[in-house]
């Protein structure tokens, strides 16, 4: 079955996008990402340690940019200017790579996005030729505005980043999905496999997660579970679930031909 995820004119087989943070070491990062089947992986842009890292392995040694689609993020940015600056550096770092994840945070405790700064940054980045996948609140109006600006995907939160609280507002996500002409991916808040499956059953085009895998007791096994959950949820969405019949049972076996 060819059911491909299409983002900014490129297609992907996997609808699971994963982060590369919080793992024990690079070997575990690599093993988990292999188990997840993800083709798009997020990375952060940070100051290089100077003087102490010569010869030390880097993330890129374990996850070669030729093998994966890198999605540099703006994690830790609290202003549009910082986010734009970070992604311009990322583009230089990754040889002109244009696909990016924009996130502008508004509060260090909740890591809730600041949508006013996010919108300002999105406008600049789109004009500058970036393909912007944007982390956002689950506000349908904001999501539509981000699409109108020219973002290539909107990524509303399921719940707070790293919280594992799951999908708190499936109703808003459904409104966003129904109105969108660009891919909607759930980013942040997924805690376990059923959360990912629910996101896909709602009609999301994909799910992006990091902590749900990295902070599991066995990250590699959880990565495998997430791969299956995303696939299962997608197939269930495509298959079209049966209508819910509240308080009305319907036997699956014939009612005729019973003995006696």
């Amino acid at each position, binding site marked *: 079955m060819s059911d491909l995820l299409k983002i900014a004119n490129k297609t992907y087989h996997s609808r699971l996008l994963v*982060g*590369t*943070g*919080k*793992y024990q070491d690079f070997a575990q*990062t690599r093993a988990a990402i292999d188990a997840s089947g993800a083709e798009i992986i*997020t*990375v*952060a*842009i*940070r*100051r*290089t340690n*100077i*003087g102490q890292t*010569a010869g030390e392995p*880097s*993330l*890129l040694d374990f996850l070669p940019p030729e093998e994966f689609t*890198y999605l*540099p*993020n703006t*994690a830790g940015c609290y202003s549009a200017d910082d986010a734009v*600056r970070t992604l*311009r*550096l*990322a583009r*230089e*770092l*990754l040889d002109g790579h244009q696909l990016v994840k924009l996130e502008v945070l508004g509060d260090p405790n909740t890591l809730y996005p600041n949508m006013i700064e996010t919108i300002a940054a999105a406008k600049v980045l789109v004009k500058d030729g970036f393909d912007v996948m944007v982390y956002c609140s689950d506000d349908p109006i904001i999501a539509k505005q981000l699409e109108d600006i020219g973002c290539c995907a909107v990524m509303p939160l399921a719940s707070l*980043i*790293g919280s594992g609280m799951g999908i708190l507002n499936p109703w808003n996500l459904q409104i966003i999905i129904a109105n969108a002409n660009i891919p909607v991916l759930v980013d942040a808040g997924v805690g376990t496999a059923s959360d990912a499956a629910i996101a896909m059953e709602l009609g999301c085009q994909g799910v992006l*997660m*990091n*902590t749900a895998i990295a902070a599991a007791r066995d990250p590699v096994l959880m990565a495998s579970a997430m791969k299956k959950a995303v696939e299962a949820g997608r197939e269930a969405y495509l298959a079209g679930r049966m209508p819910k019949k509240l308080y009305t049972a319907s036997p699956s076996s014939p009612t005729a031909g019973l003995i006696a």
Partner: protein
Amino acid sequence: MQHTIQLTINGKPRSFDADSFNVAKLVAMLDLEGKRLAIECNGEIVPRSQFVQTQLADGDKLEIVGAVGGG
């Protein structure tokens, strides 16, 4: 005689003894040759192809960044 050039690199002051100093020489001196990185000088990106041509002067502020694990 040689001049001392004061730079701020990733927020920390550093001084170098050199008459003529460019970004390529700085990268070599910091043992970062061959590493995948991006450099900003006074808020402007220095493309890799311009490392040799880009002269550094006293007081320049540089950011040298790479990719790390993140979500």
